[in-house]
């Protein structure tokens, strides 16, 4: 919606929009405050005092490090798989028209359109059906499945922006299919893929619902947090971990935004 006039918004709208944004951000800011509280046993507000000691406590917890390490490894490999599958799918769907094109895009979106618990339980029962023991790879399999769509969305949006005549121009100038891919297509979709990859990483890093069904005994960082939520053991450490998780996920999202800001939006609907 473009209005050339510099009209200012009605006060009611300003207040409602501002309040909505505050509603979204204040709870996250509160996490930051709680990371410094001296209170151990409850969620008392305002905190009775402030301390940095929980950062040290969290730093020295091997279970936190193990969970973090697993999450990073799972997210890296899932992202790599999603990048390959999502890009292939996006290229096929946007470069050619073929029978069943719509079905392919629906198939890609399905793992996030359906509630995560369904994906989770379906994979779990399939694993037990064919006797695959839970492992690192079963987690990756689940994560890659729903990460594909994020890469796909970003890549499709970018493919749509590359005018078809660029590819033709490249071929016209003597570049064969592989040269065209390397010198024209890849440089033009590169940032979109990077953005998609970062979002896929953030998505995988944070995923808990599917993971509970595919992880077996291992805990990723979200699984670790879920256990702390259900049966709190050391609340202040959880507070610190929560704050670190917020900060860590902000980075790829900001990066993804700056990579794709000219034109195509980071497909937020892709989560």
């Amino acid at each position, binding site marked *: 919606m473009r209005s050339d006039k510099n009209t200012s918004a009605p006060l009611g709208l300003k207040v409602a929009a501002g309040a909505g944004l505050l509603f979204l951000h204040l709870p996250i800011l509160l996490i930051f405050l709680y990371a410094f509280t001296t209170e151990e046993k409850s969620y008392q507000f305002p905190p009775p005092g402030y301390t940095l000691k929980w950062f040290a406590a969290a730093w020295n917890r091997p279970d936190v490090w193990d969970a973090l390490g697993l999450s990073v490894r799972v997210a890296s490999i899932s992202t790599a798989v999603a990048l390959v599958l999502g890009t292939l799918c996006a290229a096929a769907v946007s470069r050619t028209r073929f029978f069943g094109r719509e079905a392919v895009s629906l198939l890609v979106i399905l793992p996030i359109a359906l509630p995560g618990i369904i994906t989770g339980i379906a994979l779990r029962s399939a694993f037990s059906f064919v006797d695959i023991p839970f492992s690192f790879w079963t987690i990756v399999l689940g994560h890659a499945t729903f990460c594909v769509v994020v890469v796909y969305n970003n890549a499709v949006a970018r493919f749509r922006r590359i005018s078809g005549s660029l590819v033709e*121009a*490249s071929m*016209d100038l003597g*570049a*064969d299919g592989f040269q065209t891919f390397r010198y*024209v297509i890849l440089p033009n979709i590169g940032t979109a893929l990077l953005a998609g990859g970062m979002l896929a990483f953030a998505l995988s890093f944070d995923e808990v619902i599917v993971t509970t069904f595919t992880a077996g005994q291992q805990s990723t960082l979200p699984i670790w947090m879920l256990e702390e939520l259900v049966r709190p053991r050391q609340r202040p450490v959880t507070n610190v971990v929560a704050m670190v998780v917020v900060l860590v996920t902000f980075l790829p999202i900001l990066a993804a935004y700056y990579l794709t800001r000219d034109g195509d939006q980071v497909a937020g609907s892709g989560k």
Partner: protein
Amino acid sequence: MTAVLFQQVSRHFGAVRAVDSVDLAIAEGEFFAMLGPSGSGKTTCLRLMAGFEQPTGGHIEIFGETAEGVPPYRRNVNTVFQDYALFPHLSILENVAYGLMVKGVGKAERLKAAEEALAMVKLPGYGTRRPGQLSGGQRQRVALARALVNRPRVLLLDEPLGALDLKLREQMQEELKSLQKSLGITFVFVTHDQGEALSMADRIAVFSEGRIQQLGTPEEVYKRPKTRFVADFVGSSNVLPPDFVESLGFGRHHASLRPEAITLGDGPGRKQFSGRVTASSFLGAASRVTVEANGARIAAMVPASTAVPAEGATVTLSFLPEDLHTMDGAQ
């Protein structure tokens, strides 16, 4: 030698006959225009030459070599695209050097060639900029340089002047023409602008509905249109109905008559008819007067030096018999 040869070439998309049994022979060094409205098949013909489309029937040769089944990247033919299709991620110099780069020409050599090509299109020193920083006219020149640096045997131009404003377009027309003369490369030019085709081309093929309606020099096509379509599309010829033509003593045919061939009043050796003035409009150097005669609406160009008759007045008009061209059929 024949640069491009089409023998009964067709390109059908399902039931749509984009190009239908076209025969064409473009000579080496010729400036050839393909003229027609959108959807007439002219652009598809260009894409068949470039290799972006494959014929569903017929045979194509480029300098005597069979072209069907040969990918665009293996044809020594280059294209200037309608939207220029400059690579947004490359600098102007890299854009121009692209064709040489993918063919494996060394860096120093290809950049030197690209600089020269840019100088040729009067954009020396623009190499470090990005396509987004150039104006439409400048981008057009870059697209031209990018194609010409490969020394193609045929240069295809797809409505290259369509996006430019009038002044720039006229200037580019002259430049293209002189560039073509000095390089001696065969140019094949697609346009829907008849003025552009008439002023630049050595020969014109007029397309309609996937077929060539007429192929000839600009003068032939303009003065002696073979079909009603050509008469209508090229310039603004009067198409006279058979009754009218018969009454003037030419036999029962459709015929074309250029407005500027008609004068007010009679003269020696001229055919004359009378009609009632229904409209007139002042165009600067001349006025266009529309007359109703024998049930036909006929336009005549009256020089500014002559008084324009009032609307409703009955006037006598005349023309030289050789300016009237009868046409085959009633197309």
